[in-house]
């Protein structure tokens, strides 16, 4: 059933301070609304639980990009289109650009934002695996101040995250230490464009003298949250990327993921494809 529109309020705060003040005045009641690509779908389906929204789309404090020697920092309202057009990101963070290019259509990419993708907290989102690989940190702001958290531990269980009433994701910070790493991204969906993932794999490794000196791997759609595959990483460190380590790595991954049957795929299919994507990643590292 379609939503009853008079039940939904939306205001445009004049700046970030005003937005945070509004959110603090009635904790948990006023929710940020960015590009709308997720929330408007819920609204039309009559399944949008909250009824008071702050239109943050035009807040300058949540936009833009800063580059320092250590980090690239992106405003939470950075769209998928902006990600794909940015030369620094294309050069140093190709996994994030690939994820952005494979999320939805051009129209979705023009409105969908990194912060929105994080706050929507879908385990099937495509940018979070890339963010985990790049060891992203996110700045969370409220009327009371600001804190930085490691993104890899931000999502705690299905649709639950380390974000309290009155808090807003302001910026995302990526470490610039992965540019020379070998990088691999693959999204598997029903259709090349527009599809929500059956499974998504992002990985990067520093290979020295034929051995994996360091590695980061994250997957979407294989667990209640986007998964940082720490046990597979531990097993791979110091190893040669080849057939000798493949079976053990695949077994470790199989133990680490917990995929389900749903409308997009089945658990056994996701387990098979996860193994295959890991094998392809190791081939890239060996190549």
């Amino acid at each position: 059933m379609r939503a009853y529109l008079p039940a939904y309020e939306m205001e445009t705060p004049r700046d970030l301070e005003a937005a945070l003040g509004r959110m603090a005045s009635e904790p948990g009641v006023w929710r940020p609304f960015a590009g709308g690509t997720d929330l408007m779908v819920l609204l039309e389906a009559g399944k949008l639980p909250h009824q008071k929204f702050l239109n943050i789309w035009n807040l300058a404090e949540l936009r833009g990009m800063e580059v320092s020697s250590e980090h690239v920092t992106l405003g939470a309202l950075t769209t998928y289109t902006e990600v794909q057009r940015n030369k620094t990101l294309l050069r140093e963070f190709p996994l994030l650009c690939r994820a952005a290019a494979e999320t939805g259509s051009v129209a979705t990419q023009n409105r969908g934002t990194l912060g929105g993708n994080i706050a929507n907290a879908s385990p099937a989102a495509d940018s979070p695996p890339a963010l985990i690989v790049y060891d992203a940190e996110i700045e969370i702001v409220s009327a009371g101040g600001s804190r930085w958290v490691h993104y890899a531990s931000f999502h705690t269980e299905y649709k639950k995250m380390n974000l309290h009433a009155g808090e807003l994701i302001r910026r995302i910070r990526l470490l610039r230490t992965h540019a020379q790493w070998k990088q691999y991204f693959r999204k598997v969906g029903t259709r090349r464009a527009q599809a929500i993932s059956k499974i998504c794999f992002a990985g990067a490794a520093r290979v020295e003298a034929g051995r994996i000196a360091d590695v980061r791997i994250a997957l979407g759609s294989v667990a209640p949250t986007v998964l940082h595959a720490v046990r597979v990483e531990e097993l791979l460190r110091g190893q040669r990327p080849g057939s000798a380590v493949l079976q053990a790595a695949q077994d470790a991954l199989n133990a680490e993921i917990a995929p389900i049957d749903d409308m997009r795929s089945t658990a056994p299919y996701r387990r098979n494809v996860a193994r295959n994507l890991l094998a392809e990643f190791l081939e890239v590292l060996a190549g």
Partner: protein
Amino acid sequence: MPERARKIRVSCVVNGGAASFEAYPMARLLDVLREELKLTGTKEGCGEGECGACSIEMDGALVNSCLVPALQAQGTKIRTIEGLAIGGSLHAVQQAFLTHGGAQCGICTPGMILAAANLLARYPQPDDAQIREGLSGNLCRCTGYMKIFESVVAAVRRAETRA
């Protein structure tokens, strides 16, 4: 149901002219365009951002108008299919769709043409892959896509010939 939100007045520019309407803040821009501004060229397909039938341009960017709340139209510049032809002169993409049979039932056509026109504004000479990507958010259940694709290719060629 508690009735809380009041209708708001939204002012924007639509197809080059000042427009103003009243709507609930989270009314879909799609519905406002069709019902308040009587611009029924913009179609509804899926209503969930998958099919592209409701594509319009907002500040030059292609968007699904079913996913834009009316409030966010405030102060923007909007172009719908009604604003594509200049005077009596069709846009190159519109003419190519006519010449090459790019439209059948017509429901996807306005969105498809706006997606193609938006692509050509960004990439005046797109390659085949760019055309396919530019149209990938627009679904058609009649044509099998090839005539649409060929229409866009023809529009590109026509623009090249003129240049």
